[in-house]
């Protein structure tokens, strides 16, 4: 924020700073609403790890809610998600805009309403970090990730892994990531990306199916 340190940003920065501290302290000191700390963390870690190890593919519809708290707005997007081990991911947005992004290893391809672009994730570090976070959250394989500190909670339906970034590059983007695992099968049902200032993105997976065969051509981007 080098160039927004003048008057117009000063008050906001202080407010964001204070809010950020309050948010991190509250997250650290107490469980999220409706959740309580998990007594047996090892059990959950094993369950998540087992689920991640045995999941070779995922197909799911998704609803993405972008909560803009200061604007009192929620923007809702919908689409289909595909994942295939090791690192093949497709996000196909169908509403309100047509947009698809496909990640094949270190290469990602975007179909922006018919305009196709190809990039190398190395050439876009920010995107790479975001993609890593999303894939990590969906697969639930964050156990060995040194970029985050984790805490575990539960309610009747979900186990909740709350991840706090430990490295500066990620801290600039997010305050925390909340991953909600179904208690029945340790599958990821929701992911919430919380930004400084209180805005957050909630992705809810619906009609989720695992380990069904997904042809490779599903990860090719073509004109609609």
């Amino acid at each position, binding site marked *: 924020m080098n*160039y927004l340190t003048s008057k117009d940003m000063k008050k906001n920065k202080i407010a964001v700073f204070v809010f950020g501290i309050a948010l991190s302290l509250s997250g650290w000191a107490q469980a999220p609403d409706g959740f309580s700390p998990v007594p047996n963390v090892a059990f959950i870690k094993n369950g998540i790890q087992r689920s991640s190890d045995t999941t070779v593919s995922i197909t799911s519809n998704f609803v993405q809610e972008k909560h803009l708290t200061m604007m009192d707005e929620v923007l809702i997007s919908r689409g289909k998600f595909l994942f295939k081990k090791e690192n093949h991911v497709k996000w196909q947005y169908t509403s309100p805009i047509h947009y698809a992004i496909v990640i094949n290893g270190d290469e990602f391809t975007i179909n922006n309403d018919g305009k196709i672009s190809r990039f190398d994730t190395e050439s876009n570090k920010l995107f790479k970090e975001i993609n890593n976070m999303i894939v990590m959250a969906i697969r639930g394989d964050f156990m060995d990730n040194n970029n985050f500190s984790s805490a575990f909670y539960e309610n009747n339906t979900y186990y909740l892994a709350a991840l706090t970034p430990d490295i500066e590059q990620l801290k600039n983007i997010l305050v925390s990531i909340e991953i909600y695992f179904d208690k029945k099968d340790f599958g990821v049902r929701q992911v919430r990306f919380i930004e400084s200032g209180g805005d957050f993105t909630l992705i809810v997976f619906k009609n989720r199916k695992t380990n069904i065969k997904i042809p490779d051509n599903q990860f090719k981007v073509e004109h609609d």
Partner: protein
Amino acid sequence: MISAGRIYAYVFILLTGLLAGCSGTHKMTAGADNIKVAQPRFFGPDFKKALYKADMTVYGHELSGLMLFKKSRGLVRVAFISEFGLKYFDLEVPANDTAAVTFHYLIDLMNRKPIVKMLKISFRMLFLHYPENEKNHAFNCHDEWMVKVFKDEGEKAIYSYVQNSGQVSSARQSGLCKPKVRMEAGDYTAQYPSGIQIWLKKKIKIDLVSVEE
């Protein structure tokens, strides 16, 4: 050798001069034959909210996503977010015409002095955020077309718009030799245009197409 941009600027200055010869006035409330003359605007007085598919090129980097405009208590808040929900920027055009456009958030990638400056100018232009003063003047041009010039703090913004609705078709802020900002809008719904294009010094381009939520 004279660049194409400079020739374009000269032509524009010449055209503006010719337009000035149409029928200039400092305060126009009615045109010829008492036809009601509206104030220029991209967004109508009853505008509350608009959502656009947004494609932005910033110094060669392509960003895309959704841009939300929301008006509340006279001020307009603008948020640009990626398809994934990552926020690129969040800014405010204040209700008070003399107050500056302010950023509430700007992603580090875009937090560069020239980018901040150009974005502030373009959103100021988009919401015609200029105080009314005696330097502003309007020209009644051919048929139903009007041109209005706003001058404030060394900036000069020129809008071409439809006389009775105020709907702006194009606008530009010109420097001495080359234009700083150029805008085009069209396909108006009742309160806002369905398409908006903004060019900033050939460094930044913003393309907006309205979408239904």
